[in-house]
């Protein structure tokens, strides 16, 4: 992560995404900032409803414009996206910025062949002919490791296996060599071996093209594998950020700690019980006061004066590292030591 005064490739500044619903305003993203350089990968971690997917849909401009209020800035290579016209966004989507979705079966059109779906993106942005697009689609399929791509290009998604569909999805996203790739839990539905293959594929492609990747997941293991920097989201806000090593080894926020302790560790002792975070994610319609995590936080009572439930902890960032918690540094070292002990 870079310092804020310098212009990054993707720069999100104090982003607020609010939906109006019949029951009231949903604050899906509530003041989020981050930067991303080319060739780097930012992992965004959080439970469902933490605002991570909304953030990325907003970057692409795929939110429902009639119901959504956007505040803040999204700058892609210096271009402001939140105020861009639909036609400008259409030129960018699939071209300069692309997205890989979680459920490839649902995300691919069942009515069109794989080749057509890959090719039409290419034709849209390059004006290529049908046969050129087909050639390109075959090439892309080959690149993502589909065997016999010249035959499979005419298959429909339902004729592909799960892993192949995800590869096809990646091929589709990368067909125009995008500079920004947003991957929204691209491996969640896949089994572990396939997951590893896909991750490797993304890494290879990033090396080859220098793509900037935003990788959304709720799985810290995956983050450990691919990310350079990590951003932890809770209740529409960023609660902690830093490099992968910083966040995973020395977490500064009780939520991150909770996430880490809820995941099994291959290199840790097997008899340590997993401790999933008790409680459920906050309602974004009526979010808890103060720190949004406080109803679930085991350490909230350690903060004097009930500060956690009354005052929002600010995210203090220094050199890309920061967290939003009322606990003092000493308290954190003391309380989080157990974790470090069990995991390492």
């Amino acid at each position, binding site marked *: 992560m870079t310092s804020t005064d310098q212009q990054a490739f993707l720069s999100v500044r104090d982003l607020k995404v609010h939906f109006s619903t019949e029951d009231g305003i949903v604050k899906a993203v509530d003041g989020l900032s981050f930067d991303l350089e080319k060739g780097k990968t930012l992992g965004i971690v959080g439970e469902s409803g933490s605002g991570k997917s909304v953030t990325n849909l907003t970057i692409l401009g795929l939110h429902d414009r009639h119901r959504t209020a956007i505040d803040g800035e999204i700058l892609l290579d210096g271009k402001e996206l939140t105020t861009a016209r639909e036609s400008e966004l259409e030129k960018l989507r*699939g071209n300069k910025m692309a*997205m890989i979705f979680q459920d490839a079966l649902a*995300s691919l059109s069942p009515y069109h062949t794989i080749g057509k779906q890959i090719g039409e993106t290419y034709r849209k942005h390059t004006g290529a002919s049908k046969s050129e697009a087909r050639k390109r689609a075959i090439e892309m399929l080959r690149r993502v490791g589909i065997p016999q791509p010249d035959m499979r290009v005419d298959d429909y998604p339902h004729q592909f296996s799960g892993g192949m569909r995800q590869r096809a*999805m990646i091929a*589709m996203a990368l067909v125009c060599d995008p500079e920004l790739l947003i991957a929204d839990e691209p491996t969640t539905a896949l089994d572990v071996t396939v997951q590893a293959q896909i991750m490797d594929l993304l890494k290879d492609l990033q090396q080859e093209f220098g793509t900037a990747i935003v990788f959304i997941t709720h799985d810290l293991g995956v983050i450990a594998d691919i990310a350079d920097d990590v951003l932890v989201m809770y209740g529409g806000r960023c609660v902690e950020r830093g490099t992968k090593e910083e966040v995973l080894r020395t977490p500064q926020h009780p939520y991150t700690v909770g996430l880490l302790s809820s995941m099994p560790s291959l290199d840790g002792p097997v008899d340590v019980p997993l401790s999933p975070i008790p409680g459920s994610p906050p309602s974004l319609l009526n979010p808890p006061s103060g720190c949004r995590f406080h109803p679930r936080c085991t350490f909230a009572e350690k903060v004097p004066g009930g500060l956690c439930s009354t005052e929002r902890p600010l995210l203090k960032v220094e050199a890309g590292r920061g967290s939003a918690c009322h606990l003092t540094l000493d308290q954190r070292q003391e309380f989080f030591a157990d974790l470090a002990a069990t995991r390492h």
Partner: protein
Amino acid sequence: MFRFLVRRVIGALVILLIISAVTFSLYYALPRDPARMACGKVCTPELLAQVRHNLGIADPLPVQYWHWLQGVFVGRDYGGLGNCNAPCLGFSFTNREPVLGTIMDRLPLTISLALGASVFFLIIGVGTGMIAAVKQGRAADKIASSFSLLGSSLQIYFVGYIAMYFLVQQLGLLEQPSYTPFTENPAKWAAGLLLPWLVLSIIFTANYTRMTRSQLVEQLSEDYVRTARAKGMSRRSVFFRFAWRGAMGPIVTIFGIDMGTLIGGAIITESVFSLQGLGRLALTAVDANDLPMLLGVTMVAAGAIVFANIIVDAVYALIDPRIRLA
């Protein structure tokens, strides 16, 4: 696809055969005697026997049915009425007209009614549904939804008579419903059927509006539609190439069923507008105990529904490659 069609057509023929046997049996399950109908005012037993012989119903039922089948497949000799070539559906008990000829005479009207009305209700219904889906939750959607609710609660005999009264009899805006063959005079054909088309459309449109709207709303929220937008496809092309494609399946299914039913005869519509189609023919046949006509009309109506179903399945497979036909 070819194998699918062959298999389904054979299946359909078997179904039709069963329907004919069931209709035949049900007809005689009730204590009725078609011979009484064709036996003057004072019907002596001798005369009744003569009528039975003339109508060809003196034989035991299985033999009669067998003769009917023979007529269908190889034709039949009807003595004084002449020879009846296959496919022969026999002669009406009441006016001694060939059943097939009468059906063929009525079919063009029924088909015109069904096709003409479907043009209206598809364009209006699907169009309105599309607008409602695009303008989801806004004024246009609410207006379309209210009208569709209103339309679906209307009945043909109600709307039909009111439309006749105002549009034809009071204001003289439209012609008295009538049928002129298309080949004879297309303008008169359309003018004479315009009112029934419109009234049928009012009834049917509602269904298509609701269906199109709900299907499109569902499709528009599908992941692959979002993917298409993420690829940079325009709203318009996403709407028509992706969402509409997915919404078409259920609409085609309902349309197929509606067409099958309409070609089987729109009894109420034909009665309200005094049009002589298959529906009225069926009604008259039931009323007159006219077995050959009843059987003939039943076969055509059942055939229309069965084959509409096959066409629907085939079209569905063309729309959605996930459905394999073999």
